[in-house]
């Protein structure tokens, strides 16, 4: 049969339309389906960890679960933004790793109450990080592993410059200045100069909090302006490393000799140890003022269950199985690939890697000087206002008092908003 060009185009158009309709009507959305063996399919999301072997490990855990076919998605990029947007749709994850979940996600009914999963194990979870996942007495995320941040320093560079490891903020500023040379800067607090990573840590070091236990603003105090104002000196004296190829979370700036001291995470410890051997030490953020105390921020990624999942029971059972019952997986995940503290106190205490050397000191800082990195009531809008103010204080030398007044106004408005939804 001969086919005219018009007929061919018509047939092509028809086929394309049929294909489009078929794919539009398809059900392969990754949610709610059952696999061929009749098991429910659960989609689990993780953010992209930098440590080699982590992805294979979580896939191995997922494969070992009998109650559902768990499909792991390893997601690079802006993970928190991705999950926040995906939770608005029906094609988001069933189980997902979250640095929160955030208060807006909890109040918006986007996540499931997981309180009953902890049962008698609740007291064995680190209370600081569990508090961050608890709202109105209910637990909305099961902490997986604890991450903390701390100050790394090169022992040899400090010794060469005749500088002692700093134990006050003034000593840190002084040390950073003395350690700065033409090619090596004294301190690296991230490429933005510190506002992003430091968050409430300088306030903790001054004896203050972002949000108090009573749910009020915790830095409406002259000490806050005094401490934050001192950070400008680091910038003004050109002691800060800025514009490094990788940011604070990667210890490359320290190991490549671009800086003498760097604020980074505990996860970086194996890399630092491999590159510098014994030539490094760790410190908490040093105290400031008479009421101050050394401080380290601690936080935890936790496992949350989307309220839109069609397999709520299976998803909850999986989270309980993985992060409450199978403690050997938690230990493996925390300590075998990178360096994190298990969320279960009993596991953290018996972990040999956390008992000696710099790791042992870091773990002790987390227990003795740990503050929750961001309280649940500290909303995204309050965080942006605070980070903006801190940036203007550090880089622009803006008046800390005036800047903090405006942050307090914004944060109070946010507190009123979220409390109204109770």
């Amino acid at each position, binding site marked *: 049969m001969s086919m005219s060009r018009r007929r061919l185009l018509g047939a092509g158009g028809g086929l394309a339309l049929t294909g489009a309709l078929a794919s539009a009507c398809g059900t392969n959305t990754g949610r709610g389906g059952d696999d061929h063996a009749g098991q429910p399919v659960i989609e689990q999301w993780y953010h992209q960890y930098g440590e080699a072997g982590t992805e294979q490990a979580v896939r191995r855990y997922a494969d070992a679960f009998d109650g559902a076919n768990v499909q792991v998605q390893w997601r690079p990029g*802006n993970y928190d933004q991705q999950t*926040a947007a995906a939770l608005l749709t029906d094609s988001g994850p069933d189980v997902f790793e979250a640095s929160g979940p955030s208060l807006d996600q909890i109040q918006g009914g986007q996540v499931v109450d997981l309180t009953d999963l902890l049962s008698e194990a609740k007291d064995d979870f680190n209370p600081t990080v569990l508090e961050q996942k608890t709202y109105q007495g209910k637990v909305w995320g099961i902490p997986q592993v604890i991450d903390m941040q701390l100050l790394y320093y090169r022992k040899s560079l400090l010794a060469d410059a005749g500088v002692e490891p700093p134990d006050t903020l003034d000593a840190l500023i002084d040390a950073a200045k003395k350690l700065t040379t033409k090619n090596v800067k004294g301190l690296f607090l991230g*490429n*933005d100069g510190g506002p992003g990573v430091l968050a409430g840590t300088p306030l903790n070091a001054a004896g203050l909090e972002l949000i108090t236990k009573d749910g009020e603003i915790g830095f409406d105090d002259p000490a806050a302006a005094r401490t934050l104002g001192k950070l400008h000196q680091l910038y003004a004296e050109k002691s800060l490393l800025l514009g*490094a190829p990788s*940011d604070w979370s990667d210890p490359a700036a320290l190991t490549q000799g671009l800086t003498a001291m760097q604020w980074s995470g505990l996860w970086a410890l194996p890399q630092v140890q491999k590159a510098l051997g014994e030539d490094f030490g760790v410190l908490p953020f040093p105290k400031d003022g008479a009421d101050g105390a050394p401080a380290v921020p601690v936080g935890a990624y936790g496992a949350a269950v989307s309220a839109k999942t069609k397999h709520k029971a299976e998803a909850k059972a999986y989270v309980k199985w993985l992060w409450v019952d199978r403690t050997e997986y938690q230990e493996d995940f925390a300590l075998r690939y990178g360096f994190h503290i298990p969320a279960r106190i009993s596991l953290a205490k018996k972990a040999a890697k956390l008992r000696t050397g710099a790791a042992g000191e870091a773990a002790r800082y987390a227990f003795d000087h740990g503050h929750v990195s961001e309280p649940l009531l500290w909303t995204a809008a309050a965080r942006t206002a605070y980070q903006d103010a801190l940036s203007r204080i550090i880089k622009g030398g803006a008046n800390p008092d005036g800047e903090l007044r405006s942050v307090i106004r914004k944060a109070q408005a946010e507190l009123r908003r979220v409390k109204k939804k109770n």
Partner: protein
Amino acid sequence: MRGTYRRRLLGPQNRHLWFWIFVGPFVLGLTLFTYVPLAWSAYLSFFDAHNTVSPTDFVGLDNYTAMLGDDAFTDSLVTFLVFTALIVPATYVLSLGLALMVNRLRWAQAFFRSVFFLPVACSYVVAALIWKISIFNGVRFGLANTVLDWFGADQIAWLSTTEPPWYWLVIVTVRLWLQAGFYMVLFLAGLQRISPRLYEAAAVDGARPGWQVFRHITFPQLRATSVAVVLLLVINAFQAFDEFYNLLSDARGYPPYARPPLVYLYYTALGQGQNLGLGSAGAVILALIIAVVTVVQARWFGLGRKED
């Protein structure tokens, strides 16, 4: 009867049918992915829509007053103005200069046209990362700092220094590199439309080649192209996002300086804030500003008016 209906529907020679077969999918896509979200965004802007796209809490104009009273949003508009003031004249002058140069070439014109046009094909994200990581990083082995080092100058943290605001140099040069070639092609088309007789007449009248001919013949003849170029440049500047975001953001956020409106709205609506009502109000305000600026600019330049 059936035949009449069919003819009316399909039109003479099936023209309507073919029109809808070819145009229909695009109309459908445009409606689904542009007009419906636009309308939905306008709807959301009147609601308290934290973490939801189907809100119930009507708040009237609260989101609009909050956005207009938000210093960070008004600062982002100032950022846009500064960016426009830098990028529009810079691109205009560079692309016109390139077009004049390429147009005069007697040989290898196609080669040089391609060379200058090629960056247009590069992704904004890729270019921004090259600028950030290789050329303008703040350490001693960045390209720009290596050059400074040859002259004994201090290293500069290009993207993190606010006084002086070196980050503008990075932001403007990356966009200049990416878009100058495109506008060069527009100017080339404009240049090739100018009748050679005008130049011959000018020569006969004694006009000196070079600046005098450019000022009195070439530049006025490029008026229509110039108007279109400036209009496009201003609208594109308003929509700036990719290079700003990739040059200045990190995992923890974005510094308060050089934050254009779209980046701010992204963090408000799609970032962890997920305040879709407030973000939508900002988007509507921004769309209105772009529309007003475009109309005013078009009327000022006389866009669409018949040439005298």
